[in-house]
């Protein structure tokens, strides 16, 4: 009896919280659902009633986008570029972060400043010089070139996050490994990387999300249609005359589903991971 009353009381106290939670869920999930309904409707249907229910649902738009609009090419280009870039930037960034966090050497502070100052470079400005450099090394209009640029422009943030985490790993762990006979590189690979896994995971997720949606570098550094990545593919439907809203929405769903699935599966791990440190 008493317990029941308490429960009711608590529920009333929780009501504003629940209302807020509901409201914010609508605010964040709503637009996504909206785009999802649009992805199943044609542009003229959408213009007639922007908030309508998709009936009939045009599932064939996904097939159209995938085949006719070359989405399968864009999709795999994105996968290749982003996966390789994220893997490279993670390993390379972790090595540098390990070095900066672990070793005392002259120039450490300068090196850190140099790398971290990359956080504040406006990409709009880098792009012109980058273009010329890629031409010089014959990487213009190649996926490799885009990978290189992605790695270079995302090292700073990766090092920033990882270095902060690696600094917090107790020196004793490294001393112990050293006394156990492990070399510097083995210590990095077998101690820093696994112990720093939470931070690594965070940077991987973050870099993946950002690069998966990257637009400016891709548009300037790739010209061939069969080399374009997904964000450029979506732009395809954003014609200056006819914003093909329906197909933009379809494209978006294709682009966002992998990321949402990955995040849905890994958010628990990611939070557990971050609990141990990372950006925190």
């Amino acid at each position, binding site marked *: 009896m008493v317990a029941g009353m308490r429960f009711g009381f608590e529920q009333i106290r929780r009501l504003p919280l629940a209302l807020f939670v509901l409201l914010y869920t609508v605010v964040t999930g709503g637009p996504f659902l909206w785009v999802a309904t649009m992805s199943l409707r044609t542009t003229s249907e959408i213009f007639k009633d922007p908030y309508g229910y998709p009936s009939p649902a045009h599932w064939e738009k996904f097939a159209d986008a995938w085949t006719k609009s070359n989405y399968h090419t864009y999709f795999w280009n994105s996968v290749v570029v982003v996966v390789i870039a994220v893997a490279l930037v993670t390993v390379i960034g972790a090595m540098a972060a390990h070095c900066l966090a672990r070793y005392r050497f002259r120039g450490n502070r300068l090196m850190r400043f140099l790398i971290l100052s990359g956080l504040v470079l406006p990409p709009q400005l880098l792009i012109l010089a980058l273009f010329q450099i890629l031409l010089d090394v014959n990487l213009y209009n190649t996926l490799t070139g885009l990978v290189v640029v992605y790695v270079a422009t995302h090292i700073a943030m990766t090092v920033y996050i990882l270095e902060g985490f690696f600094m917090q790993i107790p020196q004793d762990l490294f*001393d112990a490994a050293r*006394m156990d006979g492990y070399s510097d590189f083995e210590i990095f690979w077998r101690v820093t990387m696994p112990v720093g896994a939470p931070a690594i995971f965070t940077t991987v997720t973050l870099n993946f999300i950002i690069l998966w949606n990257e637009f400016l570098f891709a548009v300037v550094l790739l010209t061939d249609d069969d080399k374009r990545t997904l964000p450029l593919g979506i732009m395809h439907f954003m014609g200056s005359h006819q914003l093909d809203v329906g197909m933009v929405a379809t494209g978006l769903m294709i682009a966002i589903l992998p990321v949402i699935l990955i995040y849905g599966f890994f958010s628990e791990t990611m939070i557990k991971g971050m609990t141990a440190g990372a950006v925190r």
Partner: protein
Amino acid sequence: MAVITVDQLSKRYDSTVAPAVKEVSFTVADREFMVLLGPSGCGKSTVLRMIAGLEPITAGTVSIDGKVMNQVPAKARDIAMVFQSYALYPHMKVYDNLAFGLRRRGIAVGEIDRRVRAAAAKLGLTEFLQRKPHALSGGQRQRVALGRAIVRDPKVFLFDEPLSNLDAALRVTTRNELIKQQREIGTTSIYVTHDQVEAMTMGDRICIMNLGEMVQIGRPLEVYRNPADTFVARFLGNPPMNLLQGRFAIDDGRAVARFAGRGVELTKRATASLTGYIGRKVIVGIRPEDLYETPHAGASMARLPARVAVVEPLGAETLLVLALEGSGEELIARIGRDTALRSGDRFEVALDTSAIHLFDPDTTKAIV
């Protein structure tokens, strides 16, 4: 078989600041358990890390079995170390933590497994082998850390305050267990601690350090009985030795220390070494357990008038904080548990004159 010799070992981090370790020398005999004792920041851990090969040596040498180790990397010195934080790899199971150091050394998988299981059995860790460190209690983690050293079967064990993260009760049992293990295995060990009880109970010998310098080395009771200076006198023993301002004199041919308004005849003292101090200031040291509520027969006793400031009954015994009437100095006495004294009472505290220590006030060294 391992004898560790440290000769004139020094460490200087920055040429502008005083060195962290100054010309420390000692030898640890085979199978010996040596304790490095000192307050935090005294350089004892630095000495240990230089022996381990984790810290470059500024000057002096570290040798094992007569071989100079200065340029030998840590991994080649055949030393195992137990860290204060245990340094367990959080991402590995206990089994892998134990095996990690062996895998690098090209030991056969079967042999690794045998050694890991043997060590685990010895330390009562068998049932935890598949757990990760975060699922273990503090004591269990400590044992894994110890196990990691044991499986290696090294020439030398180094311990860097391995018990300081445990609670008081666990510390006592782990202490005993650790000594038992070391005696059984017989590996030469160096143990760093700032806890004098650990040092007294565990060490075959104690090496006391202060401000980067070695102050005294010897068997625990030897050091306790004959502290080399006021630092050791106060560092060993709880509560620490009382130090009072005094003056030395020869009165009618007898050696007399004047302090707390009284002149106390020093018995069992060779006056020869004291001749230089006639008429000079000295520091008079009295351990709390050498003070009594009433003088007892058979010993030469002196009495000092005092007022009881605080009474601290500890159960087995009682501590008195006394204010000496003669000089106003404070004194701590450890007396029988059934005292009737209350705070504010005045009485004459008795002291065993044969237990008086004298120190030079300028050098703080003991006057022997």
